[in-house]
């Protein structure tokens, strides 16, 4: 490798000259963009395994205590859960459209869709807060004062609620982090920081937001929809 190595003159010397968003250690904008996107995907792999541990705990305990999980799951409100799922899918759509208009360089529509995403995310968190409050009122929070009225296996029902709060809480904390990043992005978009040529932060934030949406797509059936047979949906 050594002896035949030559050098292209001026290969690494145009750093930072024209594009203010290009970092010094990249050759060109294309490389920088692909690097950032790959980094986000690798991060999402990590996130997937992070949630994976909780999903494993869920499957193990659901396998062992099916009755407790049915009764405890029936304490959740399907209608509220389904509405919240709809809200989150809407926010995913607005995020996708935000990325779409960012790639077109349309500043106004980009800002509009980011704000919509923020609002829908806020509604989701608000509804989640309402549900938590409801659980609090009914003493369904695991711990000393835990009660599960009408549950056939109240002892293990507390495991369900531990997982319920662990999983939705971790999901909600990801939403809150996304919320904060979104505020910054909206401000930057408003200032005109993003162009049709460079909107990488919008694009990789979109990936993050959709990932959070996917986690919820699995949480909804696993936490809300266990054995509702014979019960009205609404």
């Amino acid at each position, binding site marked *: 490798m050594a*002896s035949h190595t030559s050098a292209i003159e001026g290969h690494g010397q145009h750093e930072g000259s024209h594009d203010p968003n290009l970092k010094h250690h990249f050759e060109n904008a294309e490389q920088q963009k692909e690097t950032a996107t790959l980094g986000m995907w690798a991060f999402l792999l*990590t996130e997937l395994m992070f949630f994976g541990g909780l999903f494993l705990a869920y499957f193990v305990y659901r396998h062992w205590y099916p009755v407790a999980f049915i009764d405890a799951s029936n304490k959740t409100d399907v209608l509220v859960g389904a509405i919240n799922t709809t809200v989150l899918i809407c926010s995913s759509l607005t995020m996708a459209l935000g990325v779409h208009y960012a790639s077109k360089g349309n500043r106004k529509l980009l800002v509009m869709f980011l704000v919509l995403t923020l609002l829908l995310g806020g509604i989701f968190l608000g509804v989640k807060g309402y549900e938590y409050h409801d659980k609090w009122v009914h003493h369904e929070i695991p711990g000393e004062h835990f009660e599960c009225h009408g549950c056939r296996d109240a002892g293990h029902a507390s495991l369900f609620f531990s997982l319920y709060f662990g999983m939705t809480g971790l999901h909600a904390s990801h939403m809150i982090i996304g919320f904060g990043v979104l505020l910054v992005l909206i401000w930057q978009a408003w200032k005109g920081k993003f162009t049709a040529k460079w909107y990488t932060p919008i694009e990789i934030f979109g990936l993050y937001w959709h990932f959070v949406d996917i986690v919820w797509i699995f949480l909804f059936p696993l936490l809300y929809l266990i054995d509702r047979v014979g019960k009205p949906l609404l």
Partner: protein
Amino acid sequence: MITATAPVIEEKNYLNAEHGLKSWLLTQDHKRIALLYLMAVSVFFIVGGFFAVLIRLELATPAGDLLDSNTYNKVFTMHGVVMIFFFLIPSIPAILGNFLLPLMIGAKDLAFPRINLLSWYVYMLAGILGTTVLLTGGVDTGWTFYTPLSSTYSNGYVVLTAMAAFVAGFSSILTGLNFIVTVHRMRAPGLTWFRLPLFVWAHYATSVVMILGTPVIAVTLFLLMLERGLHIGFFDPAYGGDPVLFQHLFWFYSHPAVYIMILPSMGVISEVVSTFCTKKPFGYTFIAFSSVAIAVFGFLVWGHHLFVSSQSAYAGMVFSILTYIVAIPSAIKVFNWSATMYKGQVRLETPMLYALGFIGLFTIGGLTGLFLAAMGLNVHVTDTYFVVAHFHYVMVGGGVMGYLAGLHHWWPKMFGRMYSRTWSMVAAGLVFIGFNLTFFPQFLLGYMGMPRRYHVYPPEFQVLNVLSSAGASILALGFLIPGIYLTWSLKYGAKAPANPWGGVTLEWQTSSPPPTSNFDVTPVITNEVYDYTNQEVPHIG
């Protein structure tokens, strides 16, 4: 060969490019961050070593005369926690990997320099949490944090220690993420995957383990903290939880974590053996793919830690068989290093001495791992000193020997100074002798039935324990001497040439120490990796 592109100039390099504390604490240069890691990791090595000294002192006599049982529990726990989470896991990747990866692929820096710096600060935060535990009274669960001992019965600072390991994990994730993206996106023109040095392949495989395994231990420790702090049941049988589930989740990371400790060492050994035999590594592609194979198979074997933990016997059998399979890629490496040396001109410089030590000790560590993979024998030696000896042969005999080999190999590149040849060879000999004297008797002790984690033992075990403690003091001396001559070399060592050992990978083509931007011009690679045809063997005297 290095004539035109990299003349030996001292004037401008990454060390003297900027001055002052701020230029170090806010640096985004991967080489400076590597040195920040070197300092922090060295401190933790000393701390972990101190606990090891306490353990060996206590075990020199059968009675518990130095430490009471509670203190002893805390001492071996802190030895494990510090050595694993704060020394072994970051040692090679965060120091040598950080320094060398961009150099070896002809890049100016890692893909995300700011995230690289962030990972150091996250590591330091974890270090502060860990040190707080040390100073306020310690923790006694063993580094494995098994429930329900950790969640219910322990009287130590479990939550804080788990938090420290949790935070340290994020530092490791950030490093792994950075490495993966760097190898994919930052390679110099012409540097195809099969022209990458084996060190880079090993670090790529390590990074895969880091980003896929570490989040699982993170969430496990998170649940443990919730369980202990808020009395919410996840693993506690009192709430219907399953302690074995904790062990599954814990070892899903912690077994692959062994490969985080050993794979980078294997990468170092591949470079060192090739350089000091002036020969292309025998079976380059096999060594490269065996790294990836170890990373993948390493994820399928965690259940062999649960043979006696009421895991299903069927799962145990499958895990046992899969464990044997991991031996194949490991053996491929050992055979290939040996084949590289065969009929090569082996130059016995210090890094090569450590590399030879690695090959022998890792082989013993790996083969005793096969004993442990057999379920029947495993039941006999579970939680005995046989296990302790086995994993020290892998982690110290493999991991630390590899780290020392790498540190000695690239020290001239990192600091532009040569260290004392004589003293370094003496130290390498002491480490090898001291290590074997410390840990070989532990195989015998374990097989005779001495359990681990006890501070008193029957008198008939004393001879072997005294041998082990004597070996530990030689080993400590062997670790102390490099600390002295390496530090000494920083100021008084002879100036190192750009390529003191006659290496052919890219990092030897730039000056020692390298300039801040690594290469004055981006290298373009036109020929195969490890091409020694035009490489002269330098005379070292």
